[in-house]
């Protein structure tokens, strides 16, 4: 303790790049990343212990609820270690594969990474994916084993796992308990001695990379950036090289973790800029900031976020359409990786087609919508994005089943393939392999992570992964299995669009794209579920699943035989009227297609991943 003297970042005092360390923490969910970040803040005196709020960096309510970090943040700490003052910039990266691009931009801002592994859980699928990503960015990795105070910790084995799977020397692991504050000082020392200082030329033109941004209602975009070279100060005219926007710097500073303004940011440092930018679109992650007159080269690695998962979002009550649009707009300002455009469905009315980075991203956006905007939503089944090569040679990107052209017009139907890493105890390997094979996975490798745990690698259609793989893996391995995946590319497959027809009306929002050999099973399951959910009408209702003109499944909702209750005495009049009023409310929440009322629940129940399989078992 005594070795480390800590204090707040001193305003105006600029440290040379050699005394700066930029790093991130990468970890599997629940392995203690946020707790470790908190402890670092506390041990460097950046935040006093009593001000500590658990998981300080995850400041969004939703993140706190889910215990995960969604958006990157950066905190600047100043530490005195063995007589030397250091500026430590902790760049918080999202741990989930959905945010692959954001992760890569955050990693590009760091020289080092702490690879944090739970002393009981050991190396997990996400650990592997994240470690590989860090290695790809040439980061120096310090392996850290957390939770060593757990009674059932197996730190020695976990150290072996790190060596086995990731090639990180077992004896180089630093053992800590972020919760109990054990080993934090050793870790701080390792950060300063092992991680390289940033190589920055502060005299060359400004070259800074945007790795995150958030939107402040009053101040506009707050841009997080890493200065690679040069420097910037208040009043400077800067230019975003990719988006080609020019702005004047109004304020700049660090997060300590509160937003704290300073005079200048120099090469090697991490901080924020406020330039009165009215939309986050203009401050794109990965963009390079330079000066207007003498611009530097743009930083490599810039990309557009790739939306992989799409779904339709509709207001339950058609009246809420414009409210929903406003809410989506607000979200998109804060999260440019989320996109939406208006669409309409015969069954659901007016809504929006929304594109997400992945499933988690989709869930987050949905929860945020329901939580922040108080709008009841109907969500259609998520689907992945497809590529279709038409007979005329043109290639189209398809974001929803309704857009799939007639089969006669399709030369090639391509779907996204992901490489999935699955880590589980040996005894579950059989059932996991079976699940992957059923979903047309192609096995790539098998590897022992430790004496008893095995990592399987499969190439699988993303559609299968988002359909229900995660849930199935969890139940097949009793929760011990973990998985992670990364996008590989598009591949041709024998895919078809299955339509649901209710009394000769196609319910557009219920169409699905699936493998030809699954079409019948999936179609039957959806038809069955629809039959359950649609109440009897005064006429018979045919529910069919079709591919083109071919019917692959059929169910019938029989006609109602009667709807009359016998009793009707004096008091019954008010009672009956109450019942009818209730029915009226219920009917408002129905969607009519043709003359058939389809309860909203039918859209949810049918479309929710996995339900079909369960009901067909």
């Amino acid at each position, binding site marked *: 303790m005594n070795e480390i003297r800590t204090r707040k970042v001193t305003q105006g005092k600029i440290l040379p790049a050699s005394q700066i360390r930029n790093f991130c923490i990468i970890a599997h969910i629940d392995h203690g990343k946020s707790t470790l970040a908190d402890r670092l803040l506390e041990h460097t005196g950046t935040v006093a212990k009593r001000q500590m709020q658990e998981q300080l960096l995850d400041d969004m309510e939703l993140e706190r609820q889910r215990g995960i970090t969604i958006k990157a943040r950066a905190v600047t700490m100043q530490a005195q270690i063995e007589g030397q003052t250091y500026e430590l910039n902790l760049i918080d990266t999202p741990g989930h594969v959905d945010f692959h691009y954001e992760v890569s931009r955050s990693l590009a801002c760091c020289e080092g990474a702490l690879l944090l592994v739970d002393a009981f859980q050991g190396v997990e699928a996400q650990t592997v994916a994240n470690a590989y990503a860090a290695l790809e960015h040439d980061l120096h990795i310090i392996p850290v084993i957390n939770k060593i105070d757990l009674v059932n910790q197996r730190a020695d084995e976990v150290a072996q796992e790190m060596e086995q799977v990731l090639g990180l020397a077992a004896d180089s692991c630093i053992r800590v308990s972020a919760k109990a504050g054990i080993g934090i000082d050793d870790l701080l020392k390792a950060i300063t001695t092992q991680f390289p200082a940033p190589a920055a030329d502060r005299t060359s033109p400004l070259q800074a990379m945007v790795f995150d941004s958030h939107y402040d209602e009053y101040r506009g975009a707050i841009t997080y950036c890493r200065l690679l070279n040069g420097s910037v100060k208040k009043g400077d005219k800067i230019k975003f090289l990719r988006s080609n926007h020019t702005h004047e710097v109004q304020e700049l500073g660090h997060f300590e973790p509160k937003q704290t303004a300073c005079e200048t940011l120099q090469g090697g440092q991490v901080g924020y800029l406020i330039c009165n930018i009215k939309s986050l679109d203009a401050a794109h992650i990965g963009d390079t900031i330079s000066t207007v007159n003498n611009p530097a080269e743009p930083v490599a690695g810039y990309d557009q976020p790739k939306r992989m998962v799409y779904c339709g979002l509709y207001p339950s009550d058609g009246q809420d359409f414009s409210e929903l649009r406003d809410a989506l707009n607000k979200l998109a300002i804060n999260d440019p990786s989320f996109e939406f455009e208006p669409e309409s469905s015969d069954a659901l009315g007016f809504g929006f087609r929304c594109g997400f980075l992945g499933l988690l991203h989709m869930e987050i956006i949905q929860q945020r919508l329901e939580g922040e905007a108080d709008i009841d939503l109907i969500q259609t089944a998520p689907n992945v994005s497809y590529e279709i090569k038409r007979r005329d040679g043109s290639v189209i990107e398809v974001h929803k089943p309704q857009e799939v052209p007639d089969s006669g017009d399709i030369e090639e139907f391509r779907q996204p393939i992901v490489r999935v890493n699955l880590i589980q105890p040996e005894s579950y390997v059989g059932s996991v392999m079976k699940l992957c094979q059923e979903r047309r996975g192609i096995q790539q490798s098998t590897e022992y992570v430790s004496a008893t745990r095995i990592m399987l690698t499969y190439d699988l259609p993303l559609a299968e992964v988002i359909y229900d793989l995660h849930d199935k893996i969890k139940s097949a391995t009793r929760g011990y299995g973990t998985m992670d995946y990364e996008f590989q590319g598009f591949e041709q497959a024998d895919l078809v669009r299955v339509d649901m027809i209710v009394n000769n009306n196609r319910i557009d929002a219920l169409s699905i794209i699936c493998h030809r050999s699954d079409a019948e099973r999936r179609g039957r399951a959806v038809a069955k579920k629809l039959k359950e959910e649609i109440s009897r009408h005064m006429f018979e209702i045919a529910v069919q699943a079709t591919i083109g003109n071919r019917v692959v499944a059929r169910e019938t909702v029989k006609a109602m035989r009667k709807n009359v209750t016998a009793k009707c005495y*004096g008091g019954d009049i008010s009672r009956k009227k109450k019942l009818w009023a209730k029915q009226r409310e219920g009917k408002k929440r129905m969607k009519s297609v043709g003359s058939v009322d389809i309860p909203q629940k039918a859209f949810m129940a049918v479309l929710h991943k996995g339900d079909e399989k369960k009901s067909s078992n």
Partner: protein
Amino acid sequence: METPRSVYVHVPFCRHRCGYCNFTLVAGRDYLIADYLKAIEIELDKIKTPIEVDTIYLGGGTPSRLPPQDLQHLLSLLGNRFRLVADGEFTMEANPDDLPGEIESVIRDSDINRVSLGIQSFSQPKLRSLDRDHDLPQIELAIDSVKKIVDRFSIDLIFAAPHDSLSIWEKDLSYGIGTGATHISTYELTFEKGTIFWNRKQRNQIHAPTDDHCVAYYEMAIERLRDHEYAHYEVSSFAKSGQRSRHNQVYWSGSPYLAFGPGASGFMDGVRYTNHRAVKRYLTKVLNGHSAIEESRVLSRREMAIDQIVFGLRLIEGIDLRQFEQQTGYQLNNLVPTECLDDWTEANLVTLESDRLRLTSRGILFADTICSHISMLEPPGPEASSPSDPNHN
């Protein structure tokens, strides 16, 4: 406003609660009778000068459960406020258990001229499954007794009970016809929330019969009773010539009526009101000088007109449109869009002939679908949504 010419009095006492029953009642708490009579008296004191009425109905609960002197007391309270016209109808509900006995003379000496017997079934196993206490010999004694004291009597029969069958129902109908009842009401057993049957159904211990079965029971009743000159005049009511329940027709026609007792509903000056349903709460409120009314609702003219259609349609003869227009000031078309009526006509659910709108025999089976649709119609206005498809329910 029209002065009410009908009175309903609710008598909430029962020996026990049957598994299917969710009416306002107290079982096995006869010690509340004294308070009840006091409360009724307080309620009745609203009537300052005696009113001439056409019908009075003592319902329950089980009015016949009142000890003879208490029944006598209740009748005299009523007699002081209401003068039944010469050809008036005064019905009392009775349980077969409670007859014959001392009560006979109380009834005979009163204005009561019609008894409604809650027989439900003549089949022993079916009665047991319905938690009814009486048996066939008891029913026969009760019927003999009723016939001695009044000329008109009605019986209630339930169908689609647990363990019911078409052959049991057929026997129930024949027995019922054989009693010489002037009026028969047939009820489908319904599973109401808060009843033992409902809970059993939730737990899958009893199963509701399919709709197909219920239709078969219902159609059998219509057919058998018609064969024996019981006219089907309302969804669940059958009567020999001239023996319709005049009191019930007041409800269905939209005429005003007064109501007293816990859970009783009345309609007066365009207000539908219902007294406190919980018997103890009703007693506490009334005995402490508070209003007996738990909820009330003022109906607009349009709502009253809609109610008249909705409940008038439950009558087999339907609605006399000219009379309806005179009474309500509304034309049918102003309330129910023509497209709706056309669709229903085409679907063979309603007919509109010589100024009379009525349900067809198929339409009767869907009375609730049609009536709920009509009652849900929004008044036309600049922002009113267009009427939706009648097939929606």
